[in-house]
């Protein structure tokens, strides 16, 4: 099992799309790949619509990325959470920490505004 990361610029926002499972096997590498996007100009949108499952270790990776962003006053938004991912994040309290948007277009519009 792997997680695939692709990135693209949409106006001032950088969209980082993940695909696969985020678990203890993949989260370490993912963290190393995600951190360089933090601190760049503009906003980072992490698109999770291709992610079927995020484990405990995976949620922690996302929270670490979020904390790093806060330290450099950058903004990270999560987009496209599946019902199950959203449920797990809500039940464990992780959802409270993040800015979350359902729809990528909405998020881009807000980022543009």
């Amino acid at each position, binding site marked *: 099992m792997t997680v695939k990361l692709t990135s693209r610029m949409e106006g001032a926002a950088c969209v980082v799309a993940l695909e696969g499972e985020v678990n*203890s096997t993949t989260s370490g590498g993912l963290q190393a790949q995600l951190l360089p996007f933090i601190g760049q100009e503009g906003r980072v949108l992490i698109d999770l619509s291709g992610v079927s499952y995020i*484990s*405990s270790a995976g949620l*922690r990776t996302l929270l670490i990325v979020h904390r790093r962003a806060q330290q450099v006053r950058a903004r990270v938004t999560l987009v496209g959470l599946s019902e199950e991912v959203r*449920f*797990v994040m809500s*039940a*464990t*309290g992780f959802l409270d920490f993040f800015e979350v948007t359902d729809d990528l277009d909405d998020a881009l519009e807000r980022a543009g505004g």
Partner: protein
Amino acid sequence: MTVEDLRERVDGYPTRRINGYRVRAGRPFPYGAHPVPGGITFSVYSDRATSMSLVLFERGAKRPVAELPFPPEFRVGSVYAMTVFGLDVENLEYGFRAEGPFDPAAGDRFDAAKVLSDPYARLVSGRDVWGAEPDWDDVYPYRARIPDDDFDWGDDTPPGIPTEDLVIYETHVRGFTRHPSSGVSAPGTYAGLREKIPYLRRLGVNCVELLPVFEFDELDNPRTDPRTGDRLYNYWGYNTVSFFAPKAGYAATGRFGMQADEFKSLVKELHRAGIEVVLDVVFNHTAEGNEQGPTISFRGLDNATYYMLTPRGEYYNFSGTGNTVNCNHPVVRDFVLSCLRYWVAEYHVDGFRFDLAAILDRAPDGTPLPNPPLLEQLAHDPVLRHTKLIAEAWDAAGLYQVGHFPNYGRWSEWNGKFRDAVRRFVKGDAGLVGELATRMAGSPDLYQGRTSSASVNFVTAHDGFTLNDLVSYNDKHNEANGEGGADGADDNHSWNCGEEGPSADPHVRALRMRQMKNMLLILLTSQGVPMLLAGDEVGRTQLGNNNTYCQDNELSWFDWGLAEGPTANTELLEFTRALIAFRRAHPVLRSAGHPTGSDRVGSGLPDISWHGVRAGAPDWSSHCRVLALMRCGRHAKDGTEPDENVYLAVNAHWEAHDLELPRLPAGEVWHLFADTSQAAAHPLGAEPALEHPGRYHLGPHSAVILVGRSAGPR
């Protein structure tokens, strides 16, 4: 160098390989399994084992992926400790295999055929989804795992509510929201309970006491309901499998192993709402049962250390469940203390209620100790310094210590005598006026020299009738429990008000409503710490079953149709809310010191005065069923907080009485807050003045609260 790039450690490297795994000697402390740079250190104690192996599984696999014997030089004293490198923590389950003698007479019951769970396991899988059928042939049914322990608490701080200011609400994690009517997104879970915090806030309670949440096996009950053939459960959970692990089946995310995060999130949100969390903990016995019980952990690691044994090596059974934890053995004391510290430090819980706590002061041979080291240690422990400690001060072998549980000025007790006195008085038993007065004053007869917070007052608890059933049934109806109706207590002091079970008779129904209100009124105006059973505020019924330990169904679940919507029991719910609000608004009911009957602040009034039908003339005689008392507001919180004067009267007689009211200081008049014969209480601060200033007509089986204040608007 900054703290952010910590220096690499020289012990971050393996020294040898065992069965293909890179390892080195570990540190013996802390016990259990803990991440260290590059690996995990596993540490386990066994005094009598001749050898020990670490057994590793991939998550859910039937067979171990590896077994790593601890080399003799990895042992310090009786502790085996090893660091294993390169493990995938999230995908790992571990246990131990201990070899040693099987010699029950000498106390040893080693069984190298068993994979043993770590007593210090902080996460356990095997019963991840409540009630899900397990693989009964699993070689390792309760599997130790390693949790992530970096939960983000933000700036969570315990509410730190003084014990005497608590209003405790006893509930069951699953039962609170499992009913289809709960409307939460994850019924029957920690997350579900979190969604109901607004209800708790509106009710006004400031502490929830949760029935056991340490990992247990809900499927360890072999019985079925004889009428339906349905499986019966161990629903309450007083049969601990693993003391450091939160019950996975109570977590919506248990199947992902995230129960620790989910439970912490619940505690954090309760704290944010100003609500403390007390855990009901069961240290008197374990799920291993007697000689015929399963070998899960303790029995196979060091039977003679963890259990009280007779001289012939049989299990003492002071708990009524087959075995008794050897709480005052130094190793076990350490275990209990570590466990409680862990729940306070790691989960931020605010207190504990100890099931059958009298066992905690028995010596290894079962003798009650005058100065039990475990209890003393808990009372003075630095981490537990501000933690509420509540004892169920009896056990199943006749040790009854209500009023004299070794307390070191720290322990509170479930006051079973309060429960019995209130029940008996309200149902109309004669000869109880004096005892009720003592109970309402904080039971100074039992707790002399201690504060009133020593007494946790209650009328109902999970064990026994609900409040509704207490006024609806003369006898228990436990047939559904599969023991021919023999289980459960017989001394319920209940009265059905004229008809057994549900009634359509308006007179019976009205009387039951009044009786419930009467008991709630006494509970919530008495000195001491009131505890409510969840659902009593809406008249929840168990259809007369007073021992629903095995009923995972509508009999036990909170029916939210009673709390909201067209079928709601609004009258009782609003009345309960009003009483809680009244208690919280009137510190005179919550002083730490017991009242003395004298004027200690120069108010001209004694802190408490007793009355009957005539003011100043209480009738303590055996035929009397009326008690009235007045609390002087100037004595609130032992004279440190302002309050009004409060008058309470309870009439358990079947006839009405005209009560002469005690005189108030000049300029003050009596105002009516609540009369249990009326549907609703009056809004706090807007209580109407009495028509007749010196008299009150109190109906049959009724109680009243009056407030004395200046005649004008407040």
